[in-house]
């Protein structure tokens, strides 16, 4: 079989393949979380893994986020390579003490004696009408914390490739899977493997404006870019991929070429990742700017249930297009 043979997979299957590969490759790896075993994962990611690897390595945990996330930290310090699944980023708030006070600090507090090779996967984002306690994008909050690394796979390749390097990393790595992406389908090489977890990536080259996006907003930015292309505006779409530490140079290089930036972020505007990226552009590329940096973020409201209100609260391609037209003077 040729190494470049392509197979059609979903985002969900790509993550499952990555977990499966990690379990096969390293017996220190195990998956732990609520309903990861018998249920097959709340979003079906780990379906079938319990049968293949057994309950020791596909470990259903009680609804005790603090205990099983903390146990993941302890197990990582004790020589294992745990993958902890937290159902949604909202639920990770119950484990915030463990994530911030232990995972992010012990390496430092111990003067570098202990590594925390832990991976925590969680679902993030809205768009499925699951209302205010299952829909938020709190990546920006966690990206505030030194000691953590944050990844946001927005493509099939990243869904498939980010886990292996995250497990190999001696630091706690949080992987945010946007809930709207699990059914995304496309082609991947059958032998797709790990990828880098340091750099942002240009998903569409352009010359007139940089659209900075990550996770669930990458698709929004790409749709906006297509629409802008019809107006003769070539938007460059930059996928942050790594939310901490941010790949500043990729953002700055792109803005230096395009002189304009719009950040598309599903987090709330106040104190957001978008705010951080905007500040860094101002600090490092002020003299490259031809217009103030713009942000398209979620409305400052807990996510409402009705479809029309949820969509109104979320960043939309049309809003991105309007921002770009305004800043390029193409709005008439």
């Amino acid at each position, binding site marked *: 079989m040729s190494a470049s043979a392509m197979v059609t997979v979903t985002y969900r299957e790509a993550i499952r393949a990555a977990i499966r590969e990690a379990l096969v490759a390293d017996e220190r790896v195990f998956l732990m979380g609520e309903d990861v075993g018998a249920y097959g994962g709340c979003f079906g990611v780990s379906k079938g893994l319990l049968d293949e690897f057994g309950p020791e390595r596909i470990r259903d945990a009680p609804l*005790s986020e603090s205990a099983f996330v903390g146990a993941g930290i302890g197990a990582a310090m004790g020589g294992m390579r745990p993958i902890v699944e937290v159902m949604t980023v909202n639920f990770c708030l119950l484990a915030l003490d463990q994530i911030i006070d232990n995972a992010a600090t012990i390496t430092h507090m111990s003067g570098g004696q202990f590594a925390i090779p832990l991976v925590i996967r969680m679902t993030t984002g809205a768009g499925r009408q699951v209302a205010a306690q299952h829909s938020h994008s709190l990546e920006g909050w966690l990206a505030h914390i030194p000691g953590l690394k944050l990844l946001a796979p927005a493509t099939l390749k990243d869904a498939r490739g980010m886990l292996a390097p995250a497990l190999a990393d001696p630091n706690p790595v949080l992987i945010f899977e946007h809930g709207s992406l699990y059914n995304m389908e496309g082609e991947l090489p059958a032998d797709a493997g790990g990828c880098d977890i340091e750099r942002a990536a240009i998903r569409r080259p352009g010359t007139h404006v940089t659209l900075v996006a990550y996770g669930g907003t990458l698709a929004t930015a790409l749709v906006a870019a297509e629409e802008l292309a019809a107006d003769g505006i070539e938007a460059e779409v930059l996928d942050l991929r790594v939310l901490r530490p941010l790949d500043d140079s990729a953002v700055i290089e792109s803005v230096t070429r395009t002189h304009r930036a719009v950040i598309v972020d599903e987090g709330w505007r106040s104190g957001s990742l978008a705010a951080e990226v905007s500040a860094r552009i101002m600090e490092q590329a002020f003299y490259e700017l031809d217009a103030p940096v713009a942000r398209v973020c979620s409305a400052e409201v807990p996510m409402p249930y009705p479809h029309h209100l949820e969509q109104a609260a979320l960043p939309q391609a049309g809003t991105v297009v309007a921002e770009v037209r305004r800043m390029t003077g193409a709005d008439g």
Partner: protein
Amino acid sequence: MTVAPRLDRDHGQHLLHQMLRVRRFEEKCVELYSAAKIRGFMHLYIGEEAVAVGIMEALEPKDAIVATYREHGHALVRGVSADAVMAEMYGKVEGCSRGRGGSMHLFDAATRFYGGNAIVGGGLPLAVGLALADKLQGRECVTACFFGDGAVAEGEFHESMNLAALWRLPVLFCCENNLYAMGTAIERYESETDLALKAASYEMPAWTVDGMDVMAVEGAARKAAAEVRGGMPCFLELRTYRFRAHSMYDPDLYRSKEEIERWKQHDPIAALTAQLQEAGLLSAGDIEELERSVAEEVEAAIAFAEAGTLEPVEDLERFVYWEPPLPTPAEEVAAGGDSTDESATA
């Protein structure tokens, strides 16, 4: 298998020596704190020494320890040197956490001492995870997890007890019940003050021990450790009392002088001293010798800490992410040898 503690001369004096080390070390810490040599929060273990000393007797080098922010005693008894602990409190690079942690965050990989954790209850899930790692890797180790009575009110306590019992993880839960969560008496914050009873509801062996009697603690710890090695977590409620205020900031207004005096009558050091003297296992000369050697150790630790170095500010942002240790010269030579071998075989 349970091994009963022996009250022979050597062992008795060994226990006394360990308790004295903690007591005298901390008494000096008060003085150094008052002189602004030690800063930040500092919580003293004075009065509770029998707990750490008794429990540690039942542990082996391969076992792990998770402690609280009142952990000078645990670190010293576990084998972290007084030099390294004192230097840590001085914030010096030679400290056991490179000075990054201070009094509340003593860490030592060499003795599997996984830290003073300053979030009440925060260490319990870690202990569960360490035990899980041991179990999954087939290592017959105990993780001893120390926490106070205050932690029993935290969700993390209940989540961790449940998880440890559910997965049959080798954790020895050591609840140091000194009757106060900071300044709040236990009957003012717990609906059920029999903590062993609470623990027993998680289907694990649990019982209460006189935490002022080092021999009793040691005996209970040996019995519990044997249970844990047999594949069952265990819970010990160690009834004890701190003679000092909660921290250097604490005016100690929430308990009466009479109560403190009453508990001081049960000072674990005085009690063991009397017991050994009565049995003819401790002479006045022995006491003098023990005090002398402890004083020497403490003085040496202070001198070590005073002579220590402050980390250069340029290194401020180190250790936020893990960095591989720099190879020692010997390791570098070895690595050089390896690569030569490789090139020779290639």
